[in-house]
């Protein structure tokens, strides 16, 4: 720059110019690599989850011929009948050659304990069934299911797998008679948690997450935006404002389980809200996500050029009108980004919920914000910690559901962000 060059020299690329262009090219490539790298992480994680979880959407069923003997239903209540006995009887008629006590135990264990519930529901729905023989498809046990899906290796020795040789023979026979097949797993989408992998469903957790996030979003977004606007646009520059600012930054670093302690102390013990409910969960997650939304909101308000404000003020708008009509719409994309990230965090959080009783076994699907319920990450955490092998695929499937939830939420926000975004 400090050497005086002639016109013809200027048109010729100098070494210095070449170097500057080289740096430029490298920088661009570096940026592209960063994105490619991050996207490949996404792709890799998606692939692992999907390859573990897609089998959970199928489930093995066994067909039984159940005789609903009238004498079994002599008690006054239908619920008191021996439904497991009916299942066992049906299995014995199908395999009359099994007589030893141990053999019977292995035989019965091919069928899920859920089969008895299926029969109970059928009889309660239609008591005329009593005295007849019906063909019923019932859930197979999780071990049979794992075998059908190839997650138990047949080639291993008998001692090394959970399915005995004799059970293998029975399963092969059932399969050849078309009495054993895998179908779409409707149960997974229509029931709550269960300790039997074949019966476990995600609906309870999905509804719990939905209610919880609804509360979190409807509280944290307005409060977060309002706080950011006040701090950035209205607050006088003094020690008090500094204090609030440091405070909010600090809250973002408070471990999430501490928010759980806070929720336990205030919402449950002091306000007397019911434990384990989406209401309390939503409130705790609101406090947890607020700092994220406020910080992101302030950053985007800061990036609105002062000229916009000056122009609005110059034509006579009040401070409030300037903010609501001009500054806020321009800062909206950034605020939405903060909200997405905050919601994503709230959707995936387990630790604070531990303290307010949401890490729990809840079978009944919640109907509202005051029913006890689990949420998706809690369900994932609990299933990931269960000993039964069948829960591995359920865990991955639950993660897939959570990601679907997340992507749906994100696309809505992306759509809104797109609408608001202006480059000037």
């Amino acid at each position, binding site marked *: 720059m400090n050497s005086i060059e002639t016109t013809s020299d200027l048109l010729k690329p100098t070494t210095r110019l070449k170097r500057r262009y080289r740096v430029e090219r490298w920088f661009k490539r570096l940026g592209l690599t960063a994105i490619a790298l991050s996207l490949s992480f996404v792709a890799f994680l998606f692939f692992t989850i999907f390859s573990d979880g897609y089998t959970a959407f199928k489930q093995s069923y066994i067909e039984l011929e159940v005789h609903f003997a009238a004498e079994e239903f002599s008690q006054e209540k239908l619920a008191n009948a021996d439904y497991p006995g009916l299942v066992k009887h049906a299995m014995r008629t199908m395999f009359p050659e099994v007589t030893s006590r141990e053999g019977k135990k292995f035989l019965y264990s091919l069928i899920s304990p859920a089969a008895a519930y299926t029969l109970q529901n059928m009889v309660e729905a239609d008591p005329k069934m009593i005295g007849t023989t019906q063909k019923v498809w019932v859930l197979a046990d999780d071990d049979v299911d794992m075998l059908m899906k190839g997650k138990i290796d047949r080639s291993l020795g008998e001692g090394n797998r959970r399915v005995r040789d004799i059970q293998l023979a029975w399963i092969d026979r059932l399969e050849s008679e078309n009495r054993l097949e895998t179908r779409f797993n409707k149960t997974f989408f229509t029931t709550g948690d269960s300790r039997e992998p074949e019966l476990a469903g995600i609906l309870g957790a999905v509804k719990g997450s939905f209610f919880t996030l609804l509360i979190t979003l409807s509280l944290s977004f307005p409060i977060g935006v309002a706080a950011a606007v006040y701090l950035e646009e209205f607050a006088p520059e003094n020690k008090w404002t500094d204090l609030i600012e440091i405070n909010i930054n600090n809250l973002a670093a408070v471990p999430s389980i501490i928010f759980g302690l806070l929720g336990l102390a205030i919402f449950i013990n002091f306000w007397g809200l019911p434990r384990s409910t989406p209401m309390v969960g939503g409130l705790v997650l609101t406090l947890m996500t607020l700092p994220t939304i406020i910080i992101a909101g302030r950053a985007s308000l800061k990036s609105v050029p002062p000229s916009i404000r000056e122009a609005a003020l110059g034509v006579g708008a009040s401070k409030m009108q300037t903010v609501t009509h001009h500054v806020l719409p321009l800062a909206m994309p950034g605020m939405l980004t903060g909200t997405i990230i905050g919601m994503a965090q709230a959707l995936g959080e387990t630790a604070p919920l531990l303290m307010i009783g949401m890490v729990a076994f*809840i079978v009944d699907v919640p109907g509202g914000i005051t029913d006890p319920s689990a949420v998706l990450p809690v369900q994932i955490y609990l299933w990931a910690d269960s000993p039964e092998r069948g829960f591995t695929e359920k865990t991955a499937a639950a993660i897939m559901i959570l990601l679907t939830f997340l992507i749906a939420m994100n696309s809505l926000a992306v759509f809104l962000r797109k609408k608001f975004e202006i480059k000037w």
Partner: protein
Amino acid sequence: MKVTSIFVAGALTLALTAPAMAARDYISIVGSSTVYPFATVVAEQFGKTSGSKTPKIESTGSGGGFKLFCSGVGVNFPDITNSSRAIKASEMKTCADNGVTEIVEVKIGYDGIVLANSKTVEALKLTRQDIFLALAKEVPDPANPEKLIANPYKTWKDVNSALADTKIEVLGPPPTSGTRDAFVELAMETGADTFPVIEGMKKTDKEGYKRVSQTVREDGAYIEAGENDNLIVQKLQANPTAVGIFGFSFLDQNADVLHGSIIEGEEPNFEGIAKGAYPVSRPLFFYVKKAHVDVIPGIKGYLAEFTSEKAWGEEGYLADKGMIPMPKEERQLFSKNVASLKVMDMK
């Protein structure tokens, strides 16, 4: 404006879905994560067959469970707490101070604690002395058995020449865990007693004895893993030289990839633990508030389900899930206690 209307709509939905705070019509259970997998099976069975609501079971850890349980009598407090250890005197006092004076104690069965490693290598054959030498912080000096030194053993072969020449690498629960507590007492303490120098301390220096026999080494040979036992199982598969400590039910479910270490000639299997031949197992409990039994619907039914033979019996469904049943007499005793709601003696 559109965003605002979305939020108004959201708030409206919320307000409409919120019923008035209804009363509690389900059983609330808290407590140990070790008892959790068993209690949940009973709860589910109870909920599906009785027509009552399924009990809500939180996994809070035994200590957190007692904290909640002992906070008072009333609808806001849990009815039952699960525990992987017996209630402590201090907790009983907290309970009594808060008006929880009538507690029914129910022992439900045993949980075996196993050492296991990958099937790609041979199973370890250990004595409790080996376990102590491999994992204690201070051990008797091999050169001078009267002196205690910091644990010098690096490989299993150093501990016992019959063992494999691999690095000691044990993945186990952290000191806050009841599993660890039971393991230390049942495996290491007994192992420590085999050395006269430590055994001798029992009388002269009780504090020191406990310190030596119960402190686990912290130089990296014992790795404190979290309480996610499935993760330990998978880590063992990835790292065949490592050994893991966890509950029997996880070994039971993963018998195709892991095998349990044989301790003093006893394989950790169902029969061995139930008979009491396998030396490392601990009792599991739950505690019921008597004042709640008649008021919260379903508690009686739940207790009856839990103490029925088809649940905790030798052929019961809890045994299928990996819990080790108590002997018949003990089962009879506790189911009688439950039926008559015999309360504990609160000193």
